[in-house]
C-alpha cells in the first residue's frame, strides 16, 4: 500500500483540481481564439465576473493572451499549469515518473503556445497531455483511494466551473452524483454541512440556490 500523509493527500486533491481547471479553460480559450478570427469576441468582463477573478484586461484579444499566458497573474491558466506541475512533482513516487512526464509535457506545450503565432496547435497538445496524464494516472496508481482523491479534486473543479460559468447545467445532477461516489471511496472527511447540501442537491431532495451549492462544493474541504 502506498502511504500518504495529510500534505500528500492535499496535493493529490489539488493536482486534480488544477488539471481540470487547465483542461476546461484551454478548451474554452481555443474556441475564443477561433471566434476572434471573425472579429467576434468573448464578453471577457462577464467571464471574469462569473469566474470571480479581477478583470485586468483591455480587450477580448488581450484577455485571450494574458488569461492564458501571463505567469505573473495568479489567476491565469499559465499559473494553473505551474500549480498542476508543482503538485505533480512532489508526488512522483506516488504517481510514477511516466505519469508525471505528461504534466511536464503539458507544461512544455504551454510554453510553446505562448511563443507561437498559432497557439491553438500547441494548446491542443496541452489537452492531449492532460488526457494522457489521466490515463497514465489511472494505470499507475494502484490504490483506489488515492486515485479517487485526485478524481474528487477534478470533480469539485468541474462542478465549480459548471456552476460559475453556467456550462453544461443539464449534466449537473450526474456530476454531483459522480462526486459523491468518488468522495465515498476516498475516506476523506468533508465538511458535514457542505456535504449535506451537496447530497440533497444530488438526490434532488430540495431546491438549492446556485450560490449555496457553489459555496458548498467549494467548502467541502475548506478548513
Amino acid at each position: 500500500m502506498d502511504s500518504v500523509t495529510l500534505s500528500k493527500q492535499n496535493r493529490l486533491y489539488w493536482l486534480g483540481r488544477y488539471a481540470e481547471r487547465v483542461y476546461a479553460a484551454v478548451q474554452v480559450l481555443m474556441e475564443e481564439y477561433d471566434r476572434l478570427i471573425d472579429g467576434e469576441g468573448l464578453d471577457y468582463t462577464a467571464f471574469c465576473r462569473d469566474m470571480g477573478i479581477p478583470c485586468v484586461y483591455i480587450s477580448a484579444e488581450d484577455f485571450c493572451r494574458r488569461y492564458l499566458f501571463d505567469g505573473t497573474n495568479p489567476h491565469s491558466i499559465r499559473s494553473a499549469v505551474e500549480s498542476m506541475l508543482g503538485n505533480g512533482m512532489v508526488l512522483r513516487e506516488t504517481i510514477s515518473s511516466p505519469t508525471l512526464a505528461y504534466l511536464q509535457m503539458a507544461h512544455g506545450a504551454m510554453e510553446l503556445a505562448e511563443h507561437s503565432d498559432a497557439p491553438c496547435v500547441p494548446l491542443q497538445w496541452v489537452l492531449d497531455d492532460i488526457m494522457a496524464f489521466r490515463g497514465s494516472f489511472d494505470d499507475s496508481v494502484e490504490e483506489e483511494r488515492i486515485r479517487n482523491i485526485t478524481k474528487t479534486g477534478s470533480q469539485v473543479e468541474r462542478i465549480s466551473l459548471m456552476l460559475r460559468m453556467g456550462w453544461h447545467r443539464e449534466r449537473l445532477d450526474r456530476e454531483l452524483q459522480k462526486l459523491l461516489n468518488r468522495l465515498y471511496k476516498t475516506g476523506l472527511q468533508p465538511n458535514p454541512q457542505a456535504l449535506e447540501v451537496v447530497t440533497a442537491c444530488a438526490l434532488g431532495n430540495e431546491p438549492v440556490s446556485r450560490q449555496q451549492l457553489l459555496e458548498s462544493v467549494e467548502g467541502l474541504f475548506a478548513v
Partner: protein
Amino acid sequence: MDGLVRHTRQINQQLARYGVKFGIYKNGTFQERLFPFDAIPRVISHEEWQVLERGLIQRVRALNLFLKDIYGEKRILSDGVIPEDFVYRSPGYLPQCEGIVPVKGVYSHISGIDLVKGKDGVWYILEDNLRIPSGASYPLIARQLCRRCSPETFRQNPVVDNRGYGRLMRRTMDSVNTGGINVVFTPGRYNAAYFEHSYLAEQSGAVLAEAGDLYVRDSTVFYRSTQGDQRVGAIYRRVSDEYMDPLTFVPESLIGIPNLMAAYRAGNVGILNAFGNGVADDKGIYYFVPKMISYYLGEEAILSNAPTYLPFYPEDQRYVLEHLDTLVVKDVAEAGGYGVVFGSGLTAQQRQELAGTIAAQPRRFIAQEVIDFQDLPILEDGEQVERKADLRAFVLSSGEETVVWPSGLTRFSRNPHSFVVNSSQGGGFKDTWILSR
C-alpha cells in the same frame, strides 16, 4: 556512438519530458534549469574499471573505518597518524555523535568519490563526498533515455547496464533497516536536487517525506500516514547534518525531525549517511586518506590523491607560498566548486593577499598541483570541442558488502577556460559507459 550523437536532440527532448532539472537560487529567486546533457559518453574500459572498482572499495572501506574510529576509540589520533587538530577543528566533526555506532557499524552508505583522469593516464581522486553526495539520478535516467533514442548503439557496444541503481539503493537501505518503511527525506520542492530526491525515492520504492511527515515517539521514528502512522526503519536523508534535528543541532531548523538523534542513538533507525561524516570528507582530511588505508587495511592505496600540500605544516606552507602561481588553493569549508582559486588566474596583488590569508589561517586551506587532466569531447553548436570533465563514482556500503555502481556522473565544464564542472556553475553531464569486455 554516432547513433547517439545523431539523436542528441531527441535525447534532450526526452530529458525535458521527464523534467531532468536542477534548481539554483539566483538573485534571491529559485529557478529550475535543465541539466545540459552531452550525448558523447565517457568510456571506461573493462580493465580500467576493475582497477577503479578495487581502489574505490578500498578507499570507502578505510573511510568507514576512520569514522568508526574517530567517533569511538580514536586510535588513529593516539597513534599520531593524523594530527588531532585536523579532526577536532573540522566543521564536519560533530561531538554529538561521540560514542554512537550506527546500525551494522556503517557510516557512509552512499559515497560519491570525485576523480579525474590525468593526461598521464592515471586516475586521481579529487575529493570524497560522504555526507549527501548527489548526482546518481542523472546518468541513471539518461541511460534509459539514450537506449530508447538509439537502441542500435547499445546493441553494438558492450556497455554494462547501470539501471539497477534503484535496486542497489534499496538493498543498502534494507541492510540497515531496523524494521519499518524506507524513507527518502528531502528538504522540499525548492531544493536544488529535488528531481533527484523524488526520482530516487521512486526507483528504490521508498516513501518521499519532508519535515512534518516524520516524527519521533519513544525514540522511534514514525511516518504520519492518513492510514495510521507507520514505523520508519531507514532514512536516506538529503538534508545536511546541522538541520536534521533542531533539538541537537541548529535549533532554528524547520526542515528537520525533532528528537531524531534520540532514535538514532538508540539504534532504532538506520540513517544513510550517518551524522558526522563531514569529518572524513573534509578537504584537510583528504590528504591523510592514503595513510588511513595503510593504517586500517595494511594496504597501499590503489588510487592516487592529487599531489596535495597542507599549509598547516611549515614545510608545505613554504612550498605553497613560493609556488602559488602554479597551484590551486581550496578553502576546506567550501563545497560545490566555490572557494577554489587557481593561482595562475590571480594578479600579483591578489596572490599576495591570498598568501597573507594562508599564512594567517593555514588550517583553512589546502593547495594542490593542477592536474593536467584529460579533456573529453563534447558537442557545442554541432561542433566537437574538448572540455575538462571529472567523474563522480558512487560506492554503496551495506553491512554485508561494499560495491561500486558500474556507472557514474561525468560532469564537464562548458567554459573552455575553466576546470570547474559543477552544475551550479553552468556545467553539463554525460553518460559514463563501463565496458563489459
